[in-house]
C-alpha cells in the first residue's frame, strides 16, 4: 500500500471497526444495530435539511480545530479552545445586539473581528505571554482561562450585564444586521460555511506557503534550531496561541451569528474539546480538518434521529466515536497483525531451513 492510499484506507478501516464494535455493544444491550445505523445515516444525510445541519454543525468544529491545529503545529497544546470559543461568542453577541443601526456589511465584520481579537487575547496574550516569559505550561493556563471564560459568560447572563429583559438568563437576539443569512431554509446552515472554508484556505496557505507558517512550524519542531535561525521563539509562541484563540473566537461568533442568534448558559456543549479530537484525527492538516469535522458533526446530528427512530441513547454515539478514534490512533494495528502473521509464517519456513542444512 502506498502512503497515500494508506492515509485514506486506514481511517476508513477505523471507522468500520468502530461501527462494528459499537454495533456489537448495541446488539448486546438489546437494540438493532442495522436499524440504528440506517437511522444514524439518515439523520446525518437523509435529506437536504439533514445534510445542511450536518454541515452547519461542522462549522464551529472546523474553525476551532483549525486554531488548535496551529497551536499543535507550533508544539503547543491549546486545551482551552472551549473558553476562547465562549469569549468569541460573548463579544460577537454583544456587538451583535448593541449596534442595530449599522449596515450589515459593517456590523458583521465588526462583530467577527471583535470576537477574533477577544479570542486571540484570551488564548494568546495571557497564556502566550505566560509561556513565553515565565514558561508557564500552556495546558494549565489555557485550561484555567477556559474555565474562567465560561464562568464570566454565565455571570454575564445570570442577572448580569448581557441578560435580556425578562426572566431567562439569555442575551438579547443579535440584530438582523449582524445575522449571517441562512442558506437552506429550516436548517442551521448559514453563510458561516463560507467563513469556515475561507479559514481553511487561509490557514493552509499560512502554514505551508508563507514564511510565517514556515517559522511557526520550525518553532514547533525544534525551538533550538528556530532560535539559532534567528527566529523569536517567545514571540511565535504568542502568535501561535493567539491565532489559535482568534480562530476559536471566530468559531464562537459565527455560531452565534449564524445559528443561535443569542447567548445562553448552555451555548456550547464542549466544541472546544471535540475540536481537539478533530484536529488530532486530521493530523493538524487544514484540509483533513474539514472532513473530520463533517464526520463528527454527522455522528452528532445523526445520533439525534437514531434516538428517535430506534431508541438508542445518544451516549452510544460517544461510545462509537471513542472506539473509532481509538482505531484511528492505532492505525499500526493492521500492519502489526499482518507483521505477526508474516513473522510466524517466516519463523516456520526458517525452521525448515535450519533442519535442512
Amino acid at each position: 500500500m502506498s502512503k497515500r492510499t494508506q492515509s485514506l484506507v486506514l481511517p476508513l478501516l477505523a471507522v468500520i471497526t468502530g461501527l462494528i464494535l459499537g454495533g456489537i455493544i448495541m446488539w448486546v444491550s438489546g437494540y438493532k444495530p442495522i436499524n440504528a445505523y440506517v437511522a444514524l445515516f439518515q439523520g446525518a444525510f437523509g435529506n437536504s435539511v439533514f445534510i445542511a445541519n450536518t454541515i452547519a454543525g461542522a462549522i464551529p468544529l472546523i474553525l476551532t480545530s483549525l486554531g488548535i491545529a496551529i497551536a499543535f503545529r507550533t508544539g503547543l497544546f491549546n486545551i482551552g479552545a472551549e473558553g476562547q470559543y465562549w469569549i468569541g461568542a460573548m463579544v460577537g453577541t454583544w456587538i451583535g445586539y448593541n449596534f442595530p443601526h449599522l449596515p450589515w456589511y459593517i456590523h458583521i465584520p465588526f462583530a467577527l473581528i471583535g470576537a477574533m481579537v477577544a479570542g486571540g487575547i484570551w488564548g494568546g496574550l495571557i497564556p502566550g505571554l505566560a509561556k513565553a516569559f515565565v514558561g508557564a505550561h500552556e495546558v494549565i493556563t489555557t485550561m484555567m482561562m477556559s474555565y474562567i471564560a465560561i464562568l464570566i459568560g454565565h455571570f454575564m447572563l445570570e442577572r448580569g450585564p448581557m441578560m435580556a429583559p425578562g426572566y431567562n438568563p439569555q442575551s438579547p437576539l443579535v440584530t438582523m444586521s449582524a445575522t449571517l443569512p441562512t442558506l437552506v431554509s429550516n436548517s442551521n446552515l448559514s453563510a458561516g460555511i463560507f467563513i469556515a472554508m475561507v479559514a481553511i484556505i487561509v490557514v493552509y496557505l499560512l502554514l505551508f506557503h508563507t514564511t510565517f507558517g514556515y517559522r511557526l512550524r520550525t518553532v514547533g519542531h525544534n525551538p533550538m534550531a528556530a532560535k539559532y535561525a534567528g527566529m523569536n521563539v517567545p514571540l511565535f509562541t504568542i502568535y501561535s496561541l493567539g491565532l489559535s484563540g482568534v480562530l476559536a473566537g471566530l468559531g464562537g461568533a459565527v455560531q452565534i451569528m449564524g445559528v443561535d442568534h443569542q447567548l445562553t448558559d448552555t451555548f456550547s456543549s464542549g466544541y472546544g474539546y471535540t475540536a481537539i479530537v478533530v484536529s488530532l484525527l486530521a493530523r493538524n492538516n487544514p484540509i483533513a480538518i474539514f472532513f473530520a469535522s463533517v464526520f463528527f458533526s454527522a455522528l452528532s446530528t445523526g445520533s439525534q434521529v437514531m434516538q428517535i427512530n430506534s431508541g438508542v441513547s445518544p451516549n452510544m454515539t460517544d461510545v462509537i466515536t471513542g472506539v473509532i478514534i481509538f482505531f484511528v490512533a492505532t492505525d499500526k494495528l493492521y500492519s502489526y497483525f499482518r507483521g505477526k502473521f508474516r513473522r510466524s509464517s517466516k519463523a516456520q519456513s526458517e525452521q525448515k531451513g535450519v533442519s535442512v542444512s
Partner: protein
Amino acid sequence: MSVLGLVFSNPELYGSTLAMATPLALGALGGTFSERTGVVNIAMEGIMLIGAFFGVMAAASSHSAWIGLLAGVVAGGLISLALAWPAVRLQSDQVILGMAINLFAAGLTAFLLNTVYGFGGTPISTPQLPQLTIPLLNNIPFVGAVLGQQNVVVYIMILLVIIGHFFLFHTNLGLRMRAVGEHPEAADTVGINVVRIRYFGVLIGGMMSGLAGVYLSIGMLNSFEVNMTDGRGYIALAAMIFGKWTPFGSLGAALLFGFATAVSYSLQNYGVSANLIGILPYALTIVALTGVIGRSKAPAADGLPYEPSK
C-alpha cells in the same frame, strides 16, 4: 471577626480542602506514574468515570463498599490498558488515545447507567466507604477537625502519595521507571524491559485514577451521576504538570486547587456572586503558576513512542 477571618479560621475549610483535593491528587498521581515512564496520559477524566461507575455497580450488587473499591480500581487499570497497549506496542499517538478513552468512558458509563439502572439513578442502598476517625489525631483541637475525620480514601490518598514518592525516588523499580521516561533507548541498552515498565506505569496510574473515581462515587457519595467527574480529570492533569510530575508536587497542586475551591464555597455564603467567586481557583492557579512555580519540565521522553530493539 472579618468575613475572611471567619472563613479562614474554620477548620471545616481545611477538611473540605482535603476532601476536594483527594480526587485531583489521586488523578494527578496516576498521571505522574504513567508519564514518568514516558506515556502521556490525558485520559484521567475517562478513567475516573469508569472507576466511579464500576465502583458503584460492584458495591451495589455485592453490598460491600470495599468490593466496590476493588472493582473501581481494577476497572481503572483495565481501561488504562487501552492506552498502554497501543502506546507501547503500536507507537500510537498517546494524546489521541487519551481523548478517545475520555469520550468512550463518558458515553459508556452514561449508557450503562441508564441500561442497568434506568433514569432513576443507582440504588440508594449502595454502601459507602466509611469515614475514619483517627483516635489521637481526632482529639487535637484544630488538626483533629481537619485530619481526624475523613473518608478512608483520603487517608489512602495520603499514603499513596508518600509511598508513590518513596517508590519513584528510592526503589530500583522507581529508578528504572524514571530512566524509561527520560531515555528509553538508554534504558533498553542496560537491559531494562521498556515495554514492561511502561505497561506497569500506565497500569498503576490507571488504578490510581480509578481510585479517584471510586472516591467520587462511593467515597464522598453512594451514587453515580452522568459525568460526575465534571472535569476533575483535566484539573488533575493540570495538577500533575503544576506539581512537576512528582507525587508531592501533585498533592500540593491539588491542595491549592482544593483550598481555593473550598474558600470559594464559603465566600459564596457571604453573598459574593457564585460565578465570579467560582473564578478564584482557576485564577489562583494561573497566578501561582506564573508567579511562583514557573517552568515545569516533562520527562524527556514523555509522549515519545519507543520501538524496542529488533
